[in-house]
């Protein structure tokens, strides 16, 4: 897959900035697209297109446990999030809702770059530069391959290693 980069190379982008708490209390998740990242970049919702890639710094998604954060990015059109590192709850939530994430600590990816990404191998190709993302544990690969935790459990009924 290929995707155009929205770069926010800032550390500790927390869940309040991804989707403020005042908007989270709804089952109509499509409205998150109107507010995703609004306190960080009020233009984000106008710039983002289906299939784009979000690239960030260290500890992306820290703060609350709200699953609305990865959902907001997904309904905005983001297809993959690349960060130097992720907070652990965001990491789990993203996989559980079927939003692929890649941890690449040493990236020098530029805003607007066009990336080629192979999710299976965790390889990111940025022009002539190649990054290898930290591998996901097998259970997370299994969940992603099923399209998320709901589909995984619908099929398996329980966790299997």
């Amino acid at each position: 897959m290929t995707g155009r980069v929205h770069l926010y190379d800032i550390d500790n982008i927390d869940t309040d900035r991804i989707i403020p708490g005042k908007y989270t209390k709804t089952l109509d998740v499509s409205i998150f697209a109107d507010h995703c990242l609004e306190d960080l970049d009020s233009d984000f919702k106008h710039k983002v297109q289906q299939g784009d890639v979000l690239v960030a710094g260290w500890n992306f998604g820290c703060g609350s446990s709200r699953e609305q954060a990865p959902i907001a990015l997904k309904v905005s059109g983001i297809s993959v999030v690349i960060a130097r590192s992720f907070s652990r709850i965001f990491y789990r939530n993203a996989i559980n809702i079927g939003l692929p994430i890649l941890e690449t600590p040493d990236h020098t990816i530029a805003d607007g770059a066009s990336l080629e990404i192979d999710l299976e191998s965790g390889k990111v190709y940025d022009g002539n530069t190649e990054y290898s993302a930290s591998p996901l544990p097998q259970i997370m690969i299994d969940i992603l391959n099923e399209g998320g935790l709901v589909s995984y459990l619908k099929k398996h009924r329980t966790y299997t290693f």
Partner: protein
Amino acid sequence: MSLWQIFNMGQTISEKILSAHAGYDVKAGELAIVNVDSAMASDTTAPLTLKAFKEMGGTTPWNSEKTIFVIDHASPAPNERIANLHKLMREFARKTNSVLYDEGVGICHQIMVEEQHVKPGQLVIGADSHTVTYGALGAFSTGVGSTDLAAIMLTGKTWLKVPESIKIILKGKPNPGVTAKDIILEVVGKIGLNGATYKALEYSGSTLEYLTLGDRMTIANMAVEMGGKTGIIETSGLELPYHFEPVLPDSDAEYSQTLTIDVSSIRPKIAKPHSPENVCDIDDVLGTKIDMAFIGTCTNGRLEDLQLAASILKGKKLATGVRMLITPASRNVLNHVMADGTMNILSEAGATFIPPGCGPCVGTHLGVPGNNEVILSTANRNFPGRMGNPNASVYLASPAVVAASALTGVITDPISMGKDK
């Protein structure tokens, strides 16, 4: 004899609790499927949890008595959309005999401890990041998102990577005016927002003998502000209204890092805008003008916090131009402060009481600040927009500092006012 004894390798508290819940001995770094003792969701996370649970094919939770819902984050409902989400929770709880704490009962983490849904040595998972608070009881507790919680409702299990642990040794007696909040702000400042990511914090040391259950909840609560999976406090010195077997680490347990903090030298602390790791001694920000003082939250809304504030505000009035919000952490706390006169003292000083819940801390309702306003709060987070307005600035402090500052209108050292804890 277990494998660990054969190889003579010690276990941390996290490794011991997770081994007991996996059914075999586990070590940091391993993935394990573990049995969960209790599962909790709030009105922020429960609606998506129930949706995912239904989509998974779930009808009744694996154990209704261990499935707990709390209406606290936007409670009482500020609008019809949220009112209908609350209704959804009530209907599900009624239909499945799950446990529901409705509006006004209190903040989920306070309720889980008060109502004994968590005990020492247990493994409790909540769809709220501050579920780590139960480390105060020597339990392994951590936050997950809605779908992970739905999976626990379906299976009674979750999967976890057994975390490495950071050992924090707290030694010495806190000085007058220095509270558990100042201790944890010192730790957060030292470890940083990312310093414990994927790891557990494990607290021990001579300071524990001075810490009440409430103090321990304040400390455990902010583990997630360091990225921590959990923050477990050794139960030595902890008194509970029931018998329990303490889970202690082995003397040869392995830690990724050990940090010793001399609590007797800590000054009152402040976390400046806009990050909980932006910690300084109060001396660096004395005199900063505030518009609003806020005492409450799962970090510092307990009886002792409100009593401490009342001891400072007794017979006095808030500074002109300063407003003060107080949210008791639970109805139980509210009933106590009504009975012992604490509420009168605070109300007569000019404070506004709002119902037990999370509203202002998460920016939902009941106290959203205006543009460029400065709030001094006893909460755990001060990220931009946290209280509902990205153009406001939030400083974090202890209830003693917040109360003293509400009197003067500027950030004030409670000791210099001649008031001790």
